[in-house]
Structures are given as C-alpha cells and as structure tokens.
C-alpha cells in the first residue's frame, strides 16, 4: 500500500512539475472559466433566478474540467510516453490515480478563482455549493481521466472526449445544481458521494484494460 501511494505521488508530482514548466493547461483553464463567467454575466437577463445562475456555474465548471482533461494525456500521447509508464512495475491504476490527482489540483486552482468570480458577478456561495463542488470534482476527474485515456489512443480524440464525457457528467450537474439550490442539500450531496464511489471504483479497475494494447 505504501509502495502504491509512493508511485501515485511520484506520478502526480511529475505532472505538476510538467505543468509548472510548460504552463499550458492551468492558464487555459483559468482563462476559460473566467471568460465563461463574464459571458454568462452579460448574457443572463437581470433579475434572473439564482437557480439559473447556479446552473451556469456548473456548466462553467464542467467545461473547464473538460479543458484540463483534454490535455491530461498530451505528453503521454504525443511522445508515446504512456509506454514508459506501462513498462514500469507499478500497478497501472497508479498511473490513473496520479493523473487524477494532478487534474484535480488544476481544477481546484481554477475553482479557487472561479468561485469568488462567480460570487462577484452573480451571488454568494453557500457551504453546500462548496461541498458539492469538491464532491463533483472527484467524480468529474475520476471519470474524465479514464475517458481521456480512452480518447488519447483515438485519432478523433478532441471529438471523442466530450462525446464520452458530457453524458456521464450529466448526473454531476444534476447533483451539483440540486445541492446548490435545494433547502436541504443532503440528498444531492449523498448522490454526488455515490457517483464518486461508483465511478472511481469502475475507473480505477478498468484503467489497465483501457491502456493495454
């Protein structure tokens, strides 16, 4: 178990180092989420309901995650570096988990900017929204990283990832919006927890089969 955790840490640190050097994922995510919120701010009619604004926040979060996920396996794909990782004697699910940790960090940073920006443009954010965002991030990243690996081996990867990912993100949006606007968000947060557990287990268990030729 310690060895597995060490492998995940090494792989996640590698991805964070690559991003610090190349700076090609996080700036894109930040620019995307802020500009999306600005567009929504001007597009949404005045006196719109809080429900509509919260819905747009979740749309922005999901599409920002998609920007990060699209780039998740760029190095591994373009230089076939996935071969180097697959040859290593670590459990192959550690590759998935390390990548998840890195994408989660990028998404978390993007949301640290996005949520205050949302509060400035629209309305304040309650604790239930913050908890829902954290839970949704886990689910989005778990499913999205697996699908990014699937898409990475395809020639139509830029098309394939949104096509595969967005239908599976619908429950996250339902749960997220529900938790953000409902008076008793417990049911929606529980739903997001269940989504995280189910899809994290499925993704963790199936990653090896996705990347094996």
């Amino acid at each position: 178990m310690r060895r597995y955790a060490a492998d995940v840490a090494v792989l996640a640190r590698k991805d964070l180092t690559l991003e610090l050097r190349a700076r090609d994922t996080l700036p894109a995510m930040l620019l995307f989420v802020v500009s999306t919120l600005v567009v929504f701010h001007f597009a949404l009619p005045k006196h719109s309901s809080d429900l509509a604004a919260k819905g747009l926040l979740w749309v922005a979060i999901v599409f920002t995650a998609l920007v990060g996920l699209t780039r998740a396996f760029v190095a591994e794909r373009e230089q076939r570096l996935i071969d180097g990782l697959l040859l290593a004697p670590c459990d192959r699910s550690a590759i998935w988990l390390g990548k998840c940790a890195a994408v989660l960090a990028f998404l978390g940073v993007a949301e640290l900017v996005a949520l205050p920006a949302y509060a400035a443009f629209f309305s304040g954010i309650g604790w239930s929204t913050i908890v829902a965002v954290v839970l949704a991030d886990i689910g989005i990243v778990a499913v999205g990283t697996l699908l990014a690996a699937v898409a990475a081996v395809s020639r139509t990867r830029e098309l394939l990832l949104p096509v595969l990912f967005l239908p599976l993100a619908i429950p996250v949006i339902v749960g997220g919006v529900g938790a953000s606007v409902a008076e008793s968000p417990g049911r929606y947060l529980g739903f997001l927890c269940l989504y995280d557990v189910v899809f994290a287990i499925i993704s963790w268990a199936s990653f090896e089969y996705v990347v094996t030729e």
Partner: protein
Amino acid sequence: MQGHGRERHGRAGQASDPPTEPVLISARGVGKRYGDTRVLESIDFEVDARGFMLVTGPNGSGKTTLLRLCAGLATPTAGELDLRTPRESIGYAGHEPLVYRELTAIENLDLYGRLYRVPERRERIGMLLERFGLWHARNQRAGSFSRGMQQRLSLCRALLHEPELLVLDEPYSGLDDAGAELLDRELAALRPHATFVVATHDPDRVLPLATTRLGFA
C-alpha cells in the same frame, strides 16, 4: 503485406550457449491485428535466457510490433506468447525515447528510478549519464537534446534498473559514430548477463552477439 514470406533462422549459435539456460520468451503461432490490419501472423520462436535474438526486415514488416509484444507493451491477438520474466526485469528502448521533454535528464531518470525502485538510484543515474556522455547535460531539459542525445538518454533509461531482458528497437538510430561504438561496447559488456531482443537495419553490427535471428521478408 506484413507477415508474409517470413524467414526464420532457428537458434543460430545455440551450440555455444550453455544447454541448461531456460527459455525466457516462447512464441507459438503468435499473430497481431490492429482492427482489420494484420501486422503479424503465425510467428514461432524461442529466446533462451542470456540469448540474443536479432530481428531484421524491411520497414513495416512488423518488427516493432514483435518487440512491443516481447516487452509486454502489447498482447497477441492470436497464438501464445509466454514471457517468463517480470515486468520490472524488462528494459525497452523504442523509436521514441520515452522521456519527458520538459524534465531534465536527471529528472527523467529519477522518475523512472523511483518507479522501478532502483537501489542507490542517484549513484546509478550518475554512473549511466557519465558512461553515455550526458553528465555535462544532466540539468538540461530533454526537449533541448539532439536526436543522438535523446537516444543516449533513452538507453540510460532502459538500462537504469539493470534489466534481465533488453528489448531494443533500432538502438543505433540517431547515434553518431562515437555513440554507436559506445553502444557496441555496452551490448558486448551486458551480453553475458542479459537476454536481448534487438531489431536493427544494421544487422552486421550485432551479428557476432546473436544466438537467434528472426528475419521478416
């Protein structure tokens, strides 16, 4: 296309090997398809431990696919390939150097050294970089390396964990004369201790080391 007119040379030079060496790789009727494309068909061979299989053939004949199968990077779609060595004992150098462009030479080797649990990792990395003439460039990003330097770094990566089985796909590709001579010396030094599967367009270079030759037509 690929997979036709294959020429097999049995186990040349086997008489010079100790007869007790176990078989490390055994292929029976191995085939590989990618969708409708047949890349390999009905390949049979065996490589003994401490053997050296030389794979030759024209471009597109399936050499790289065969080497990927031998390295455990792909699984056959037909037949049986028995790879009797664990993943941590395989060293692979392919067409791509498998190093991150944004990381330095040392960082790349450190990454793989950690994943392979290489004992005395720093000393081993330093020794390899020195031996392959990359010590002076150890803190440079791999993306700034020339093709030859990347190939040297790729060989360092493949040798880092002292593998029992070395799978090398065109290892001389990109190397200058000095680099090629260095690799000759390395292969000769490792020859008694490791098993090799090597594909090359310059078979004469490693022919004296080979115990088996698999030729693709």
